[in-house]
């Protein structure tokens, strides 16, 4: 139990189907009310799609898990109405420092440019994110959250899947037309369908300690390689809200997790670290949470299996260096929500969901590649790897090129959906599949952000520079970006929209509801726009 946070307890409500021989039926069932399942439920609710969400537990995440939420994820939470809360409660940061042995090797800034609503990262304990998501789901009136409801079996069927559910008051069956498996790394759904989940285990252990203390280290990510206070291993320090600090100690494969978790031992390590980092006596602190982890990278071969679709840790797992697990999962459901809603509304064929598989497998591979490379740098596997690692760190003190080689975690960045089947080839500017870059705009004289206007209504957006086409096909919201103050337009007063989008007058960019670029058109006819729209819906 932590001293700064009390887990809410959500009540079990007896479902009507309990004890009935006939399974209950639902159109959309999400297994797992973790950060990914809840985000998906909320996204669907905002598109008017009701869902049933089942979770075996009666609360949000316990203790220390995800803390770093990346810019793209914050933009998604922004679209879902929770962005402000992250900014308000979370610790904003974009700078980091890397230390090697007893010296600082260099510092970096992940978002050196101004003019974005969200910073590179906000640190916030995962349980807060989940608690806010639960509240927003409840408030939507479209999410039927069922706590203490454990999936014990799954039978895939042509028109969906039959779930066997266990509750404190008995078992029942629930037939889902669409089953969205967000039940985490040990997914019961994945196991019930006997789908292989393959990849690499890293032979290393990490001690994760969250401590409460009043210290004045800056809001930066500090990473030590081989520091005097923890020789031969790495250490990572991060600030969280509530005066909680996350410290990760690399322990090596031979460490005994039970011994390492003993409070006296952890306290001694933290003390040595604080003294080493500040050169002063350690401030008083209390242990909030301690755990020892090993990490792996693996994924399902396919994320879509007919009417059963996997997202988040049930589909892919990465090492935490780079904060790509939770961020990747939220970006999965950002991709999935609008597509499923379009299929359910009869606007798109079921095959549209194959593009979820194409696009998010690509993104997962990018995350796995980056997180594997980081792990290889942090945990050298032999003496040559060790020598290269130390050589890079040594050179990094005085040479910029070597800083680029230091890999203490390539921090989560959104995938550009290269080669997406939904994109219309042609045109110039930002690559197709790019997630929309933000920029400041003025709307009726008021300061505003571009991204707030894209996809907020759940629809496709046609972002038009300078002038609107004469005719806009149905289902698309046209937005005019102007370099002067015009009624009904977004005024690109700083010129940053045009610059970041590499847009010329007459350009019309078609954006999917998840804010990814689907087509780059020039002064298009309605038919051209409609064709790109149809393609993005999987209709051609």
């Amino acid at each position: 139990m932590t001293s700064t946070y009390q887990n809410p307890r959500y009540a079990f409500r007896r479902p009507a189907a309990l004890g009935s021989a006939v399974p209950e039926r639902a159109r959309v069932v999400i297994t797992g009310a973790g950060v990914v399942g809840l985000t998906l439920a909320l996204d669907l609710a905002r598109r008017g799609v009701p869902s049933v969400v089942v979770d075996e537990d009666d609360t949000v995440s316990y203790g220390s898990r995800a803390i770093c939420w990346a810019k793209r994820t914050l933009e998604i939470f922004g679209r879902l109405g929770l962005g402000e809360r992250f900014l308000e409660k979370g610790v904003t940061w974009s700078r980091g420092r890397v230390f090697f042995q007893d010296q600082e090797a260099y510092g970096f800034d992940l978002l050196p440019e101004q003019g974005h609503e969200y910073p590179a990262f906000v640190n916030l304990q995962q349980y807060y994110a989940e608690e806010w998501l639960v509240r927003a789901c409840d408030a939507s009136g479209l999410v039927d959250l069922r706590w203490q409801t454990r999936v014990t079996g799954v039978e895939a069927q042509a028109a969906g899947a039959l779930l066997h559910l266990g509750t404190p008051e008995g078992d029942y069956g629930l037939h889902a037309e669409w089953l969205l498996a967000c039940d985490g790394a040990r997914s019961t759904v994945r196991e019930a369908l006997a789908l292989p989940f393959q990849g690499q285990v890293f032979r290393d252990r990490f001690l994760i300690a969250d401590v409460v203390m009043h210290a004045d280290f800056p809001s930066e990510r500090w990473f030590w390689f081989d520091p005097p206070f923890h020789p031969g291993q790495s250490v990572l320090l991060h600030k969280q809200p509530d005066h909680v600090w996350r410290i990760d100690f690399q322990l090596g494969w031979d460490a005994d997790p039970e011994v390492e978790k003993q409070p006296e031992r952890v306290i001694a390590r933290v003390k040595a670290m604080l003294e080493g980092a500040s050169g002063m006596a350690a401030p008083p602190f209390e242990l909030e949470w301690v755990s020892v982890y090993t990490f792996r990278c693996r994924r399902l071969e396919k994320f879509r299996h007919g009417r059963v679709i996997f997202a988040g840790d049930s589909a892919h797992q990465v090492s935490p260096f780079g904060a790509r697990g939770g961020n990747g999962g939220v970006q999965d459901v950002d991709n999935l929500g609008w597509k499923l809603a379009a299929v359910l509304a009869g606007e798109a064929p079921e095959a549209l969901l194959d593009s979820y598989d194409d696009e998010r497998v690509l993104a997962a591979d990018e995350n796995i590649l980056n997180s594997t490379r980081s792990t290889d740098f942090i945990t050298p596997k032999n003496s040559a790897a060790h020598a290269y690692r130390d050589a890079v760190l040594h050179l990094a003190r005085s040479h910029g090129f070597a800083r680029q080689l230091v890999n203490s975690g390539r921090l989560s960045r959104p995938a550009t959906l290269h080669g997406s089947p939904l994109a219309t080839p042609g045109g110039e500017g930002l690559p197709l599949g790019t997630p929309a870059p933000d920029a400041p705009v003025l709307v009726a004289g008021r300061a505003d952000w571009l991204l707030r206007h894209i996809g907020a209504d759940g629809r496709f957006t046609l972002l038009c520079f300078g002038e609107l086409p004469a005719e806009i096909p149905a289902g698309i919201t046209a937005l005019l970006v102007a370099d002067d103050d015009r009624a009904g337009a977004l005024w690109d007063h700083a010129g940053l929209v045009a610059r970041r989008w590499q847009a010329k007058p007459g350009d019309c960019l078609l954006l999917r509801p998840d804010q990814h670029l689907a087509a780059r058109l020039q002064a298009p006819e309605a038919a051209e726009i409609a064709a790109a729209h149809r393609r993005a819906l999987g209709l051609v």
Partner: protein
Amino acid sequence: MPLQTEPRLADPDALYEALMQAHRALDEAASRRLDARLVLLLANHIGDMDVLRDAIALATQGDQP
């Protein structure tokens, strides 16, 4: 430009001597680090990933397990 393997050094013996000199006082581990720094500096100087991949492939042929 592909990886160049024809003779290019004006004074090969001087290069060899400079390398030996650099390693002379070092133990195994320090020698390894020196070589690694050297490879990294030269790789950045070359700056062409195709050339570097060719060089790695060619060098790997020396000690196939």
